[in-house]
């Protein structure tokens, strides 16, 4: 069995799909293949944010811990999605937990490495930021719609 090269896995992920060919290499140079068992944490609130996870399989829950309710799932993401944005901006600390709900596989991209490459190559940096902005905007829009409580009792809205 021949393992798929990391650069191919990166290039196949929606976040980096159709990235100019010479830009995939530097990203893949910061990446490694990782797997998580159900219940395993990908990231923990308050800890240094150092990784961008490109989810390839399984389902990952974004959670926040509550003293009274335990971990509350805010959102779940699956293959093709991205987990972890806080490596992008100071103070580089996770704001939420992320936990594998099922067996999950991802490409883990070192945040500091990716930032350095983006700083050194503005063309790569701009392409990266445009893609990140697209995903973040989509997430923001979905969050706004959820705030409407569309399925709530009309009288209560």
């Amino acid at each position, binding site marked *: 069995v021949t393992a798929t090269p990391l650069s191919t896995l990166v290039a196949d992920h929606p976040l980096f799909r159709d990235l100019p060919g010479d830009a995939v290499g530097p990203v893949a140079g910061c990446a490694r293949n990782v797997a998580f068992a159900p219940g395993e944490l990908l990231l923990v609130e308050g800890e240094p944010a150092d990784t961008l996870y490109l989810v390839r399989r399984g*389902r990952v*829950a974004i959670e926040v811990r509550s003293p009274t*309710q*335990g971990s*509350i*799932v*805010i*959102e*779940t*993401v*699956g*293959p*093709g*999605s991205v987990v972890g944005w806080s490596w992008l901006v100071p103070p580089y600390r996770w704001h939420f937990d992320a936990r594998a*709900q099922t067996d999950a596989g991802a490409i883990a991209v070192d945040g500091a490495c990716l930032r350095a490459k983006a700083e050194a190559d503005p063309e790569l940096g701009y392409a990266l930021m445009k893609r990140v902005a697209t995903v973040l905007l989509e997430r923001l829009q*979905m969050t706004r*719609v*959820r705030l*409407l*409580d*569309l*399925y*709530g*009792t*009309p*009288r209560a809205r």
Partner: protein
Amino acid sequence: MEHLVRAEAARDTLGAGSLVPPAPGPMVPVAHRVVETWRETEDVVTLVLEPVGDALAPFRNGQFNMLTVYGVGEAAISVSGARGEGLLMHTVRDVGNVTHELCRSGPGDVIGVRGPFGTDWDAACGAAGSASDDSFGAGYSDSAADPVVVVAGGIGLAPLRGVLYELLAPRSDGGRARRQVSAIIGAREPSQLMYRDDLEAWERAGGQVLTTVDVAAPGWTGHVGLVTALLDHAKFDVEHARALVCGPEIMMRFTARGLVDKGMDPDRIWVSLERNMQCGLGWCGHCQIGPLLVCRDGPIVPYAGVVSELLLQRER
């Protein structure tokens, strides 16, 4: 008008002054007895109704009836299925005076039913489906094998229940349904997911059933997020698929846009509109939205064209 014409004909045949009463018109509720009820969620109840006398005309999936609680009022409720010979299923959410009384009703209570009214999902499915005068009809013809993605939010699953059974009906040789069917079902929270047995039945029949909630509860291990987030998880060929969407209009708007963004032709997306339906016949105009009288021209309408704009308009 057909009812009135029939009444005239009967009078002509029997002669003037006959004591035979004219057939009831479409504005006259026909008495139905509640034979069974069960609670789907905290504020949603399903009623099974049988006609006290003559049955109404057979419904088609997606159509609605006007349910009358005598002395209280009338409300438009989608037909969510048939149950055996002549029995109607309606799933009702307790949101107003009439629906509150409907949700409180129990076996033996009599309510009025007018209908069925409006358009159905047949065109959305790409075929002329059969009337559902028994449990979910006979399915669709071979020529209409396009994959279907059904997206439902909250009580919006009710008008889609019957068509899901129809789409997933076994083939004549007993095999699994030929169509690829994906159902994406959203609810506010896990306890508000309706038709749990049906969800399992659709999966057993070969459908892909994805559920998601806005707010997770302890123990919930499913998806959390908008239904649109699951469009990427659903297995359907966006180029050939058809979409049937029902739920709050904002949800339908975002879903339709999400499907178009994925490459679906807007002509292949159908939505179920809800407005203030009163007469059910396009006479009174209460449900008018732009050029449409929703009770007559809807509730099932193509998303493309005028409807995509109308979904942005405030109800008057």
